[in-house]
């Protein structure tokens, strides 16, 4: 099985940041492998260990993004491709999906996997966009993956429970971070990663049109959320206050 895992370098959402005149200011050193993508890498590695094959990671980004590729290689991925950009194009999900589909259109693979969303923006659009552009059968929000008779069996979290979906290969899948605990690279993995190949692909070589690349959406500004206020406190006979609050959740808070 040939796995391609698309990974992204994103801000550490736990790192401190500021908003100044609507702009988000973050420490540039606090960039990490997107947690959902780390789960996708982990799952591909587990399936490779069980069934054999090769795991290749693909990352779009500026020069610094190669650190994220090294991280995935240190976890155990076999090789990486870095699609290089300036990093300040303001790409949106559609731009990333267009780049990935242009890259994959002449590639051979069985399973194309991605994190289900980026931890900074939480949009969750790129995966199904890529599947559509490449005309691949797909499943999103996977919480478990297995390979059975050359098919990918996806357990996904849906609206009314978990669904088991069988996908013929080649296919695409987006991964939840609830599917596994990504391994922390050990020293041996880190040393080995330095000898693993990273191919560099210039964005221009993918011959995408201005129209395909230009983002349809842009963030115009950021703002803080209003702070929370304490609400009502109910003290008294347990039976009475419990029923009163239950009723209020229905009639006043409207959340039932």
């Amino acid at each position, binding site marked *: 099985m040939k796995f391609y895992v698309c990974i992204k370098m994103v801000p550490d959402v736990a790192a401190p*940041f500021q908003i100044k005149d609507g702009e988000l200011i973050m420490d540039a050193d606090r960039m990490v492998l997107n947690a959902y993508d780390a789960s996708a890498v982990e799952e591909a590695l587990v399936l490779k260990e069980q069934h054999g094959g090769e795991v290749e990671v693909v990352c779009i980004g500026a020069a610094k993004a190669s650190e994220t590729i090294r991280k995935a290689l240190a976890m155990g991925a076999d090789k990486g491709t870095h699609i290089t950009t300036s990093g300040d194009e303001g790409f949106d999900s559609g731009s990333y999906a267009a780049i990935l589909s242009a890259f994959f259109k002449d590639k051979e693979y069985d399973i194309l996997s991605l994190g289900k969303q980026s931890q*900074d923006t939480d949009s969750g*659009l790129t995966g*199904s966009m890529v599947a559509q552009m490449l005309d691949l059968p797909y499943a999103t929000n996977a919480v478990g993956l297995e390979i059975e008779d050359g098919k990918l069996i996806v357990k996904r979290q*849906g609206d009314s429970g978990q669904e088991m979906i069988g*996908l013929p290969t080649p296919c695409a899948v987006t991964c939840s971070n609830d599917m596994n605990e990504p391994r922390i690279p050990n020293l041996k993995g880190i040393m080995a990663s330095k000898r693993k190949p990273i191919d560099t692909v210039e964005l221009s070589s993918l011959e995408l049109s201005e129209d395909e690349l230009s983002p349809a*959406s842009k963030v115009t500004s950021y703002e803080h959320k209003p702070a929370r206020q304490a609400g*009502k406190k109910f003290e008294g006979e347990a039976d009475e206050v419990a029923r009163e609050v*239950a009723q209020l959740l229905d009639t006043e808070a409207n959340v039932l």
Partner: protein
Amino acid sequence: MSSILTYIAISDGKIKRSSLEVLSRSKAIADANGLDCDAVIIDANASTFTDSVQQYGASKIYVVEDPIFIQHRNTPLLSALSKVMEQSKPNVVAFASTEGTKDILGALAANQNAGVVADVSSFDVTGNGVLAKRPVMAAKIMGNVEVSGDTVLVSVRSGSYDLVESPASAEIINIDFSIEESDLKAKLREIISATGDTIDLNEAESIVAAGRGVKDEEAKNLISELASVLNAGIGASRALTEAGVYDPSLQIGQTGKVVSPQLYIAVGISGAIQHVAGMANSKVIVAINKDGDAPIFEVADYGIVGDLYKVLPPFIEELKKIKG
């Protein structure tokens, strides 16, 4: 005539309330901007829902009815939505941000060459697209997003808008649709029905979280029962996951999961700052705690000071009545 089309999500034979919230918003936008407010229902029994949808002001209702839609499947849903969009040519298509929507939104945007913005907490239309506000950076802050395009798709978090009835007599438009099970490449093998502990906390609409006050099996059972009544995910404070009472993946807080459900019920949780960091963006917070001075009450919308063993049984019973 320009229009805004709202997708009405059906799950388990019921209209998802969140899609009627979105329709209410679409109706307000349509009225303010001179747009048509249309709706689309795609389900095995789609036509049975048109009366309910008319109550929220849709002037045209597109109905796609086929047995294939008895369960969520992305391929048929995509092709049905594409067909309706090609016929109705909407400027904006609005969705409730359900798992079903998340599964197809990007693909539909790519298929229809539309702009798209997901999981917003508010939106409005402009001359050439949509303006929206959405939580980013683990819901710590809001981003203002501008999307341009002849067609823009937008998905809206549940609870962002109130239901507003606006009864209208809608024109019902049946769309011919058929797809064979055998033509689908992705095969649905099995549905594993929902139980409290399999609900993804990051996306759960309701969460029941247990803290140090949950000490024994009886209390754990009350937590499970409450979660089951609300179809809620179960979370826990660090104290309980470290003690091995709940699985580590259920930890909510700065070092665990950061959640923002519509309803968060903290049971026996004191509300240490590390815990609050993980749940302060919940829409409505209920706290149940013996200690009236516990810091959790500073962020709770509804605080019940009392013993969880005495509070939870009547609370659960009353919720069952309301839900039933």
